[in-house]
């Protein structure tokens, strides 16, 4: 059976001979239909969010109490909420907040995580030991509670939320990066580089960074949905984005309250959130399969 597996492996590789690792991954990703569809969906979503002010004729905050809540129609694609605000507009503006928070918090977590993990893994020894124990302690912390306390104390500042959510996401990232760095440190080509007198800094940037990139990219794509969900969670508790600004969390919160009378107020923001989360998860999974064909594809 090992023979067969070996053979099958060979048979699969043939056509992609001569491509680089990245090209190889790119082809594998392109073959993953769900990931490609998800990618274009997200692109569309992001573009719509960025250019929201140009795309819609309604304002996200202007109320029209005479109109009230109307179901979806030609003018209001997603209907309006009980204050007569266009739900499509508010969902798009919500996307701005939710996606921005997702991307920024993911960025914060990547920066902290890489720095922490790389230092810990590269220096090793006692430093590594202390840093890892600290990480383990932090792992056991109920971080969302701290974010909640923080949000209450500093007064629901959206920028503080960006940073706070990013700051609690870096733990796993640090762990992954450290693992990669340690594995790479043992590789012969790093020894070889060191033997011919390449400086540490150069080793890090020339050899380590490109190799660590794969898992980091994958984990980042999986961090974004987690953060989007957490923002929605905080907004639901009334600690996130404040009226009249909208985020998906606040919209869903309103929708839940009006669920029985105006179901469209829940359906549209909620499906938008879920579609985005699904897309992000598909891309994350697709990237993982593409960048590291060993781990999955059973």
């Amino acid at each position: 059976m090992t023979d067969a597996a070996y053979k099958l492996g060979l048979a699969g590789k043939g056509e992609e001979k001569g491509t680089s690792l990245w090209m190889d991954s790119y082809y594998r990703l392109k073959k993953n239909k769900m990931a490609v569809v998800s990618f274009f969906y997200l692109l569309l979503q992001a573009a719509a969010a960025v250019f929201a002010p140009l795309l819609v004729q309604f304002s996200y905050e202007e109320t029209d109490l005479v109109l009230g809540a109307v179901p979806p129609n030609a003018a209001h694609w997603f209907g309006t909420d009980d204050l007569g605000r266009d739900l499509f507009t508010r969902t798009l503006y919500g996307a701005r907040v939710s996606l921005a928070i997702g991307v920024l918090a993911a960025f914060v977590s990547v920066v902290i995580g890489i720095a922490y993990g790389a230092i810990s893994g590269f220096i090793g020894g006692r430093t590594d030991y202390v840093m890892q124990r600290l990480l383990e302690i932090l792992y056991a912390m109920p971080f969302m509670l701290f974010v909640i306390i923080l949000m209450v104390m500093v007064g629901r500042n959206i920028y503080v939320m960006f940073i706070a959510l990013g700051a609690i996401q870096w733990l796993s990232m640090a762990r992954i990066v450290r693992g990669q760095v340690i594995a790479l440190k043992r590789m012969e080509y790093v020894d070889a580089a060191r033997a011919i007198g390449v400086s540490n800094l150069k080793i890090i940037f020339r050899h380590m960074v490109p190799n660590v990139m794969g898992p980091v990219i994958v984990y980042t794509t999986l961090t974004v949905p987690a953060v989007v969900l957490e923002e929605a969670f905080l907004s639901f508790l009334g600690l996130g984005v404040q009226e009249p600004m909208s985020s998906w969390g606040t919209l869903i919160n309103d929708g839940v309250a009006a669920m029985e009378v105006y179901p469209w107020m829940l359906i549209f923001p909620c499906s938008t959130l879920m579609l985005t989360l699904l897309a992000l998860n598909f891309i994350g999974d697709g990237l993982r399969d593409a960048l590291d064909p060993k781990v999955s594809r059973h």
Partner: protein
Amino acid sequence: MLWILATITFFMVRCAPGGPFDTDKPIPPEILKNIQAKYNLDQPMLVQYGHYLADLVRGDLGPSFRYANRTVNEIIAETLPVSAQLGLLGFLFALSIGLISGMLASSKPNSLRDYVPMGLSLLGVCMPSFVIGPLLVLVFALWLGWFNTSGWEEASDRVLPALTLGIMYAAYFSRLARVGFLDILHQDFIKTAKAKGLSAGRIFFRHAFKGGVLPATTFGGLAMSGIVCGSLVVETIFNIPGLGRFFVQSAMNRDYTLVIGTALLYATLLLIMNLVVDIAYVYLDPRVRHD
């Protein structure tokens, strides 16, 4: 460890602007003074901190600032059993459904038996609990009338909140169990077991089980901390008199002692949970035991 936590929360809460006795109407200064003297709030912060720590060592979390004449210990003693019951039910639901569906999926990959639970679990991962909860209420309480919409009196009141709390983690457990079992079922020693003429059932439950549930086990600690956070929302949705609801309210009300006390309690619980996970890990993987 807990001491660090207490210190951080203590100063974080105290340094923030606004106090528990800020109200719309200004309180006469002499009354405010009395109140502050009662809770030692008129002393320098370090002295307050010293008092607090001394009480903490004795297991006294102090009086609540907002609920007059009640101590934090009393409030916790009253609400914790409710939250603990909810959390435990949610966790057990997540673990059992997650493991069973994940094992089912792994037993026949790329078949209907795999796609259905995995599709559902993908939905579960993407559905926030504050959407699932109201939807469950709508369908099972309002339309079908099987359960009450909220409250915590009858045994059946436990069902919907526990489901709401557990679904997302059931989804995670399911995916982890599937990956874990698929990984194990492709190991050489499974082929050895087959070559020995063992039945499929024995191979699955005897040879693959421990290794298969390992990835899900490591997630146990994280799941527990997620369930603690989730309980804040679920208790709000279902109007359950548990610790989570008190925590959110006390944070909003700046009820210092209650916030710190609850946070400390949660942290302790999670530390214990992580210990349990570590022990489970050692039990499952003999290689760790002998290192």
